[in-house]
């Protein structure tokens, strides 16, 4: 296991590349979800406002 983690002396280069890849993957998933959610929430908010206005009129 220690030998595997040492990556034949290249640990300080190999592991950061895999770690950074994981981070970029996670960021892309989260950012895409957030963007969709924020558009949905903005639409829902607008729709709710419209409904209220209509019920008052």
């Amino acid at each position, binding site marked *: 296991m220690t030998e595997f983690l040492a990556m034949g002396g*290249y640990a300080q*280069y190999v592991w950061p*590349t895999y770690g950074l*890849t994981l981070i*970029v993957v996670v960021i892309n*998933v989260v950012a895409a979800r957030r963007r969709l959610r924020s558009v*949905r929430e903005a639409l829902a908010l607008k*729709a709710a406002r419209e409904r209220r206005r209509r019920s008052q009129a």
Partner: protein
Amino acid sequence: MRITLPTWFHKLASPPHFYRFARLLGPWLLWVSLLLMLIGAWGGLFLAPPDYQQGDGFRIIYVHVPSAYLSTMIYAVMATAAAIGLIWRIKLAHAVAAAAAPVGAWFTFLALVTGALWGKPMWGTYWEWDPRLTSELILLFLYFGYMSLRSAFDDQSRADRASAVLALVGVVNLPIIHYSVIWWSSIHQGPTISKLDAPSITTDMLWPLLVMILAYTLFFAAVLLQRVRAEVLDRERHARWVQELLAGPEGEVR
């Protein structure tokens, strides 16, 4: 000459159809791509033998090459979508181009940083103003330019057209990136797997790389679908189909 597009294309290009299609397909693509990434990383880190010159340092290839490939592939998708949007005035195509840009920028960044971390032990430097490295950096700036040009317009259709022209002009950079290691003397190594007749890599080193390339491609597709859904909802907020979704029992778009 007049080129027409097939009917299925127009059907898929209609925003409500595409929205439903993306909602159905997106989550599946994401899980399959993440599973393939794990398989590829397992194969690349555990199963592939160490390289005879680079030892275990070569294992960076499994995250570097797929991200570098994706950085140019996404640009090609973005520019193609932008061209379709300009020529056939298909609004969905512009939404696809806009959605692709941030993902492309992230993977270009990843290609540059993983490349730097590979360059240090093998070339003795993180960075060199080398043709391959420089043209990849220009790609990152093209994505940034594309995104900032989009956000500079209030009017959606003007942003679509202006940014599409920029995306198309930037296409000249793609062959430069691809052939840079052949045209100029570069410290970057030449192609490894595209020489299909005689790939300079053994099978147990090759399959994790191919799995990773497939995984990254599907991952891009999954993220793109989700981002296009957001783009489409935002652009079509006054359209009847969005209003119908909003008028549903939940009063919410799913």
